[in-house]
Structures are given as structure tokens and as C-alpha cells.
């Protein structure tokens, strides 16, 4: 129950920071995607069997806060979270910095999936190469930011005094 409360708080904070602080921390055209990060951390930490459902809910929240049609981020978040959840036992054994590094391609894939679907729906007009590069930058940036929350979650799960 506590973890669901944390998920709701994390989601609210992510949306607020994503929209309010984007001008301050955008580097070039890449800004971190905190909501995607929250979804993937929710998926990878804790080993929940149906974590992709939570990720899908966060995707729907991202859709509701974005312009364009609903369901695009929802599908992308769910798909990537499902793939990542299947690799969760292997991920759990990795050190924190490798976990963060593993999140980079996942977030990039998530952003690329959203971009491709929106391009198919005719909502954005961007070249594929530009889109791929931007998604890679977003993935790397978000993964770099994921280190502190991953460390905190690691400490919470494995207290040093135990």
C-alpha cells in the first residue's frame, strides 16, 4: 500500500517537475523524462508480477498532460515496462550504476515508440534520424538523473544495518 502511495506521489512530482522545470534543465533539445523514469523504476524495483499495469497508468497520465491523442504513451510505457519486467531478475543483481545504464536504452526506446506512433498519426513532423538522436539524448540524460532515486531505493530495500 505504501508503495502505491509512493507511486502516486512520484507521478505527481514527476509531472510537475517535467512541465515546470523543463526550461531550466533542457540541454540542447533534450530534457529528462521523469514520468518515464518513474514508470521504469516502478517496474524494475520490487519485482511486482504486473508492474506493467502501473507503467501503463503512468503512460496514460503522460498522455493526459501532453497534446495529441490519448493512449500513445500508455501503449509505449506498457510495452517497454513489460519487456523490462521480464528481465527483472537479471537487473536486480546488477549494481546501481549498471541499472541506471540499463535504463538509458529502455527510456530511449520508450521515447522512440511514442515519437513513431505520433508520426504515424500525423501529430508530429520530424525526420527519423533527428527523432532517434533526440530519443537517445533523452535516454542518456534521464538515465543519468536516475542514479539518485535508484540509490535511495537500493538503500531502502537493503538497509545498511541489516
Amino acid at each position, binding site marked *: 500500500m505504501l508503495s502505491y502511495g509512493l507511486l502516486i506521489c512520484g507521478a505527481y512530482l514527476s509531472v510537475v517537475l517535467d512541465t515546470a522545470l523543463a526550461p531550466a534543465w533542457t540541454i540542447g533539445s533534450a530534457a529528462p523524462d521523469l514520468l518515464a523514469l518513474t514508470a521504469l523504476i516502478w517496474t524494475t524495483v520490487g519485482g511486482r508480477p504486473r508492474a506493467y499495469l502501473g507503467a501503463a497508468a503512468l503512460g496514460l497520465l503522460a498522455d493526459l498532460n501532453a497534446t495529441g491523442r490519448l493512449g500513445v504513451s500508455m501503449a509505449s510505457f506498457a510495452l517497454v515496462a*513489460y519487456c523490462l519486467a521480464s528481465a527483472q531478475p537479471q537487473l536486480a543483481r546488477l549494481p546501481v550504476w549498471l541499472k541506471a545504464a540499463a535504463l538509458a536504452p529502455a527510456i530511449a526506446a520508450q521515447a522512440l515508440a511514442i515519437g513513431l506512433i505520433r508520426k504515424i498519426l500525423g501529430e508530429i513532423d520530424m525526420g527519423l534520424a533527428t527523432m532517434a538522436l533526440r530519443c537517445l539524448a533523452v535516454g542518456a540524460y534521464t538515465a543519468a538523473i536516475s542514479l539518485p532515486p535508484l540509490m535511495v531505493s537500493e538503500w531502502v530495500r537493503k538497509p545498511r544495518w541489516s
Partner: protein
Amino acid sequence: MTISNRSLWRRAGSLPFAPLSPVLFASVLLMLAPPRATAPLKDAVSSLFAPGQKWAVSVRRRAFRWVIRCRLGLATAEQQQELAEELQRLRERNQELETALAWAAEREAAEQDAEGGITASASLVRPTLIHARALGPQARSFLERLELLDAGHNAGLETDALVFDASTVVLDQGRNAELSVDDLALAGRRILGKLVEVGPQTSIVRKVTDPGYRDLVQLAQRNEAGLRRGARGVLEGAGESLCRIRMVEVTEPVSAGDLVLAAGETGAGALGAVYGRVTRVERRAGDAHWQIWMEPAVGRDSPGEVEVLRLQLNPERIARAPDEVGSP
């Protein structure tokens, strides 16, 4: 049929993305939903997040201000001193230029009047500027040892007081340059003060802010047409950083930022010399005159070199006088 259906479901359930299919199906349905139908839901969600976003933006702005303050605080004291001096120099220069501009505009207007048929006669008395240097503490001490610091005794000032009182301005010109008491000391077109004591070789300046300083002044406002002269009043030094201007009636228009020009008979008015700028204007209930405070144009630090304004007879008039007498 039932058994075969069950095996079909089991096979379907073992497919890689089978548990995900309901979520993907729901996503596709949402994608097909028209934007008009989903707009109210989006509005509701955005209003839910609006307070948090406002808070985050205010925090971001505060943090930005804090960072700027820290950066400014990291500048060394020496840099701050340099910047402050530069700012003071630029302010003084700005004031000089403003006054010069106003004076040029007035002179142009006067010339236009003259071209329009008004013949101006040469003035009998003409102001002349005498260059002088302000003596520093070391120079004063040296002159005192040679018993050449010859101004100030009549005003009740002791030589020791002159040497050690850094705020007193002592000039290196006196009666030798035909200076006299009440001549104005100028820094550019800004008035530093009046000569209060003149010795054979030196003289003492009473600064505008010194207690007992009084002079007739005129307020002026700058507008698009040029400088518009206004009410006259009496400037008084009070020993504080700001001077008072009295005897300006409340029926006269006065506002903060007005220029304060010299208006006495010393010739400074003709030169367009400026005393400073009005910084504060108040009116007490039942009072017939404004309470006006002026910031002097010359700052606390006295300039190293000044010009003393001295009146002298116009040589043109003196040379012309015998002919005029002889003419019918």
C-alpha cells in the same frame, strides 16, 4: 468444443505479449477516440496539476535569484570597489552631459531669438573660470610647515584642523588669482561649493552640503522641447548628504528628478551650472511651501581639480565705451 476452446486460450496465454494485450487494446481504443471527447478529461487533469506547477515555477525563480546573488557575492571587494567607482564616474559624466545639452539647447534658442530681430547687447560683467587644484592632506601638511597655508584663519579655522579635516576642500589658488569670497567652485558644470575664505595663495571651499551654505537656485525640468525652468528657491546645506531647498511655494510644480540650477548673481546661472537633482518632495498639511530635498551633483569624494567662477568686467564693453561716449 469447450475443451478445444480451453486449450486455445492456454496457447494464447503462453504467447509472449498475451498479458499485455488488454492494455494495448485499451490504448488503441483511446487513440481512436476523437480529441474533442478527451479534451474535458485533459482539462481536469491539468487543473489538478496546476497548483504544483505554480509552486515549482516559484521555487525555480527563487533559486535563480539566489544563484545570481551568490555570484555577485563572490565578486571580490576590489572588483566591487572598481565597479562602484566606475558607476560614480559614469553618473557624474551623465549629469555633466545632461547639463551641457540643456545649456546648448538654451543657447540655441537665444541665438534664434537674436536672429529674429532681437539685438542682444554685450554683458558688462562676464564670468571667467580659474583653474585650481584641491590640495590633499600631504600637500596641506607641507604648506602648513612652510607657513603658506594662509586661508582659514579669519574663518576661525586652525591649520591643524585644516590638515586633519579631510572633508575640507582647500584650493591652491587665492588672491593671487583674484579669487574672492563667495566665488563658486565648479567641477565641470557641477557646483562643488563656495569660497568661504581666500588667502594670498590658497582658499577654502564650503561645500554645498556643509551647514550654513545658502544660495539662490532654480528648479528645471527636462522635456522634449528642452529645459523648462521653473520655480526659484533657497538652497541650504545641513551637514547631511542631502540639501534642503526652501521657499518654493506649493503652487509651483515640483517633482523628484527635477534639476536644480544655480540662479544667483555669480554668473553660474548663465553658465548653466547645476547643483544637483531633487530626490524627495513633501508637503505638510497647511504648509505654504514644499519640503524639498536635493542630492548634490558632486558626490562625497571631492574632485581633484576644480574651476572657480569669477566675475570680471567685459573687455568688449570697456573698449567700446569711449566711442559710444563720443558718438552723437
